[in-house]
C-alpha cells in the first residue's frame, strides 16, 4: 500500500504540524497533541473537549472553533488519546464554567476519558461526560461493549457546541448533548478495507464484488458480508436499518458521510437514494450534510446518520460555526 507519509511513527505529529500551518485560528500543541481554539478559554463559556484515535479526520480537530468544540485530543491512529492530553485540554479551555467531555463509546476512549475526568476534577475543573453510541449495527446487550459512537458525534459536537456558544450552563449543554445522542442513529458500509500506517496493508480481506454491512470507523469488519450492491440497494438497507431503531416522529438532520475513500460524486449519488428512501418512508428531512466527516482513513464506503430534531435543535444546527471542516453563518 502506497501512502503519503514519512514513517508510521510520525504520521500524527506530521499531520498536526500541517494543520497548525493551515489554520492559524487554532492553537496546536504538537508535542502534547492538543488542538485548542486560539481564543480559549472564552469567559463564561462551557468548554467542549472531544478526542479519539486519529484517522477519522476531520473528526475531531477539524471541528474545533467557535460554535463547536473548544479542544480536541488526537490519539495515535485508531487508538484513543491518553488522559494527560484531555487534562491539558480541559485546563486550556476551562473558564470556570466547566467542561463537557464528548466520548465515543469505545472501551479505550471510555477508560482514558474516565481517568482524565478524575484527574481534571482533582485540579478543580468541573467535568461532565456524554457518551456517543449511535451505531445500530451493534446489537447492544449486557454482554458487549455496547453500541459504537460514529456519525452522531458530529451532531453532538455541533449542537452542544452551539448551545455552549450561546452561554448555556454546563448542565444544559450536557442535557443537549445527551438528547442529540439519544435522537441519533447510524449505519455504515464498507466497499474496501482500511490500511493503517502501522500495518501498511488492508486490515481485512474484502474481495472485489463484495461489501461489508454494519462497519464501524476502525477498519474492523462489519456484521455481515454480501455480494456488492447498487447505491440504491445500499441506501435502502442502511436507511431501513436506522429507521428500524429510530422511528422519527418529526423532521431529521441527515448526514451522508464518506469513510475517506469514496469520492463526492458517489456520495452525492448515494444521498439522492437516501433522500428517496426517506421520502418513501414519510420522513421529512430538515437539513442534509454530505461529505467526508467521520472517516476511516482510506476506506471506501459510507454511513448514514439521522438525528430527530425539534425547533430548538434545528436553531442550534443553523447557528454560526467556524471550524476547519464545518463553517457557516458568520
Amino acid at each position, binding site marked *: 500500500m502506497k501512502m503519503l507519509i514519512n514513517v*508510521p511513527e510520525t504520521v500524527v505529529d506530521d499531520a498536526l504540524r500541517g494543520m497548525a500551518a493551515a489554520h492559524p485560528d487554532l492553537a496546536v500543541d504538537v508535542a502534547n497533541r492538543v488542538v485548542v481554539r486560539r481564543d480559549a478559554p472564552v469567559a463564561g463559556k462551557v468548554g467542549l473537549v472531544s478526542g479519539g*484515535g486519529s484517522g477519522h479526520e476531520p473528526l475531531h480537530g477539524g471541528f474545533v472553533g467557535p460554535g463547536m468544540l473548544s479542544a480536541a485530543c488526537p*490519539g*495515535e*491512529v*485508531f*487508538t*484513543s*488519546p*491518553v*488522559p*494527560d492530553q484531555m487534562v491539558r485540554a480541559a485546563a486550556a479551555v476551562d473558564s470556570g464554567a466547566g467542561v463537557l467531555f464528548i466520548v465515543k463509546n*469505545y*472501551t*479505550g476512549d471510555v*477508560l*482514558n476519558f474516565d*481517568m482524565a475526568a478524575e484527574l481534571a476534577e482533582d485540579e478543580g475543573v468541573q467535568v461532565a461526560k456524554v457518551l456517543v453510541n449511535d451505531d445500530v*449495527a*451493534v*446489537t447492544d446487550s449486557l*454482554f*458487549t*461493549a455496547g453500541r*459504537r459512537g460514529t456519525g452522531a458525534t458530529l451532531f453532538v459536537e455541533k449542537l452542544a457546541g452551539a448551545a455552549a456558544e450561546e452561554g448555556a450552563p454546563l448542565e444544559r449543554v450536557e442535557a443537549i448533548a445527551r438528547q442529540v445522542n439519544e435522537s441519533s442513529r447510524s449505519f455504515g458500509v464498507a466497499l474496501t478495507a482500511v490500511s*493503517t500506517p*502501522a*500495518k501498511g496493508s488492508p*486490515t*481485512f480481506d474484502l474481495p472485489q464484488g463484495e461489501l461489508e454491512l454494519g462497519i*464501524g470507523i*476502525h*477498519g*474492523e*469488519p462489519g*456484521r455481515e458480508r454480501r455480494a456488492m450492491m447498487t447505491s440504491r440497494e445500499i441506501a435502502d438497507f442502511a436507511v431501513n436499518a436506522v429507521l428500524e431503531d429510530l422511528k422519527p416522529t418529526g423532521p431529521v438532520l441527515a448526514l451522508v458521510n464518506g469513510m475517506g475513500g469514496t469520492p463526492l460524486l458517489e456520495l452525492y449519488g448515494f444521498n439522492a437514494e437516501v433522500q428517496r428512501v426517506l421520502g418513501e418512508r414519510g420522513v421529512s428531512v430538515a437539513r442534509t450534510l454530505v461529505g467526508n466527516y467521520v472517516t476511516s482513513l482510506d476506506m471506501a464506503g459510507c454511513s448514514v446518520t439521522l438525528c430527530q430534531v425539534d425547533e430548538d435543535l434545528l436553531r442550534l444546527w443553523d447557528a454560526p460555526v467556524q471550524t476547519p471542516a464545518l463553517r457557516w453563518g458568520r
Partner: protein
Amino acid sequence: MPDQEPDPTLDAAFFRRWLIATAAAVEREADRLTELDSAIGDADHGSNLQRGFRAVTAVLEKESPATPAAVLTLAGRQLISTVGGASGPLYGTLLRRTGKALGDEPEVSHATLAEALGAGVAAVAQLGGAKAGDKTMLDALEPAVTALGTSFGAAAEAAEAGAAATVPMQAHKGRASYLGERSIGHQDPGATSAALLIAALGTAAEESR
C-alpha cells in the same frame, strides 16, 4: 516452593528486570501482536504496547525507584500516559494496583507477589467490566495468578494456555466484541501480550541466577 531453582530475591532490581524483559518480548513479538489484532481489532496492539514499554524502559533507565512497589507504579503511570487505547489504562492499572498491593517493603516474598498480582488482575477486571471467558487479557492473567502460587514457570505455562484457549471464544468486550461470532477462531491479542508479561517473570528470575 516446588521450583527446583531457589526463588530469586524479589527486590526493586528484580521488578526492573521483569519490565525490561517484558519490553524486549513486546519488541520481539510486536508484529505478531499487530497481526492478531488485525484479525479481530484494529491492527495496532503491537505498536501501541511497543510505544508504552519503550517509555517504561526509558524512565527506568533515568530513575531508580527503591522498592518493588515504586518500580511498578512508575511503570504503570508511564503506560497510562503513553499507550492510549484500552490497553494503556488496563496494563497501567494492572501494574499500579499490583505495586500498591506490594506495600513499601524493599523485598517481597513470592506469596506476596502472587497475592498482589491477584489484586492487580481484579482491578483490571473491574475497570474493563470483563470476566474470564470474554476473550480478553483476563483469560491469560487469571490462570497465571492461580499458577503463580506454584512457580514462575507454571504461571507462564498457564498464561500461554489461557491465551491459546481464547481462539474458540466469542469476544464480549472491547473492539473484537463488535464482530460477534466472527471473532471466533482468532487468538485474542490482549491475552497474548499478557502471556508475554507473565513469561517475562521467568526471564527476570533466570537473569538473577
